[in-house]
């Protein structure tokens, strides 16, 4: 069959992607080498923004915070989600019923369907020092000494955000892993059972081994999501107090739209982009190698 005549269908996609993705991307990289307030014409300054960036304590702090957020958004949900998915699939669904398993799965997934801004409002209220639910609950339980200004105290703010993010992210790996587990031949488990394998042995040797593709996908997508985090930070803390929850995307946003330092903001987002692309490439390589072996 001749394959000519299909290329014309790519034209709308190419035109649209050029206008919305390629041109802005190139512009941002260019602007990152200039000094620009957004008005008038940009002035070329070479690497000045980048040298300033690498000497900026806030820049390093914002990437330091990202490492903790990767733990909260990627590492913890992936591993807890793995155990939960295995329990739901291999224990609840078999010993009780499929309906129990899928009801629990939907419940765990619920936070994921809410708009991030709404997630932020819910937790912003619960954690509010004055009228928030958590402190009121602690006080009425006689644990008033545990009450804190969860989001307003630089010492606790980032940990509070981490807790919220674990709550928010947990459902995604569970759903992904459970769908992956359905590929597993039930006879594998039966055979392992007959050989006297413990639950833990079956979990390690069968479950984890079989859903390795999903494991990679979840780790990549959640890690990238934590690098990009913006909405929750904007609604919960706006990067504060005193930059304790500053993240790169909010740092860039502040420079673009609050400080009118467009060149500097562009340098931040360019570094963030390079980091994300490198990370994705490394992960894809690892995944390919794992699949081949």
């Amino acid at each position: 069959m001749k394959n000519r005549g299909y290329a014309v269908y790519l034209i709308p996609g190419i035109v649209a992607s050029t206008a919305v993705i390629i041109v802005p991307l190139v512009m941002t990289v260019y602007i990152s080498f200039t000094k620009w307030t957004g008005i008038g014409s940009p002035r070329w300054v070479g690497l000045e923004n980048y040298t300033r960036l690498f000497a900026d304590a806030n820049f390093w702090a914002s990437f330091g915070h990202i490492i903790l957020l990767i733990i909260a958004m990627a590492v913890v949900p992936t591993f807890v989600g793995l155990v939960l998915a295995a329990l739901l699939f291999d224990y609840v669904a078999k010993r009780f019923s499929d309906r129990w398993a899928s009801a629990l799965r939907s419940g765990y997934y619920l936070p994921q369907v809410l708009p991030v801004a709404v997630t932020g409002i819910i937790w912003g209220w619960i954690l509010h020092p004055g009228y928030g639910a958590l402190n009121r609950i602690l006080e009425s339980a006689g644990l008033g000494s545990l009450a804190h200004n969860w989001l307003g105290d630089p010492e606790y703010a980032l940990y509070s955000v981490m807790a919220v993010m674990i709550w928010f992210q947990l459902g995604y790996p569970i759903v992904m892993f459970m769908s992956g587990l359905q590929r597993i031949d039930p006879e594998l488990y039966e055979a392992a059972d007959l050989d006297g394998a413990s639950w833990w042995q079956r979990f390690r040797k069968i479950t984890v081994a079989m859903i390795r593709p999903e494991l990679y996908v979840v780790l990549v997508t959640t890690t990238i999501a934590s690098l990009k985090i913006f909405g929750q930070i904007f609604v919960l803390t706006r990067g504060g107090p005193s930059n304790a929850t500053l993240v790169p995307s909010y740092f860039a946003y502040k420079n673009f739209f609050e400080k009118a330092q467009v060149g500097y903001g562009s340098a931040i987002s360019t570094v963030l982009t390079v980091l994300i692309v490198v990370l994705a490439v490394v992960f894809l390589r690892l995944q390919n190698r794992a699949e081949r072996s």
Partner: protein
Amino acid sequence: MTVTATRAPERRTEEKPTLRERRPGRFLILAGLLVLLLLMVAPLLVVAVNAVKSPADYAAGGPLSLPDHLYWRGIVDFWNRVDFGLKLWNSFITSLVVAVLGVILSVFNAYALGIGRVRGRIWFLVFFLVANLLPQEVLVYPLYYLSKQLGLYDSLFSIIIIFTVVQSAFGTYLLTSVYTEFPKELLEAAAIDGAGRWRALWRVVVPVSRPTLAVLFTFFFIWTWNEFFLPLIFLISNDNQTVPVALGVLQGDRMMDATTTSASALIGIIPAMVFFLIFQRTLTRGIAAGAIK
């Protein structure tokens, strides 16, 4: 596994639990999972309970007491104050148009790449994958600047155009892998009947891949509905705001109290829950599909 091949797994339902597994201890695990479920949905329940409480009731009984009577004023006042009906409409129309256009654009791209196997298709796929990974921060300032130049700033059009392209990057990536395995016989039969490329696309390819397209539509709709960063920057006037933006920017408002905040959170949760219930099946099927390439 491809998107279309997601039928339920064959599992034996007749298996009888062996004696060893009938210990009452097995309920401990289920109980643990139920406690976790309660923790996951507790914030939403607390929001719902307090959204229908009067401020005096909240002050007296705290966040965990049941309302002494249903108090709708908080919700009604908040609804009117932010003109919530209009925000719902803005969100709905934006998400719907993006979902429709995004699916069409993805189909065109994937038709050329997956079925047409246009030369350089791997590079196109890499391009679309990268476009999907890019953080929006790296595109935002040029998009903001260009949309101002074109007179598209602060209009739903700008958001629709941008998200159609951003979402279709993912759609193209996913759909191409489905179309690569599209049955050739169907296309050959259509060609023998005298159908050209255009008719083959609409009469054969689109109807056959309808389940996958439904998954994409659902994803695009919900993702666009939940978007926060770009709408926050592009939709600045009150008449154009979407639901997350309207709620998110009010969060810093000092006039809010506990019951108003939970009322605002509740009306942000409800549409998301409605979509979740409507789309639940497509969503879980789609999440599985997104994982495996």
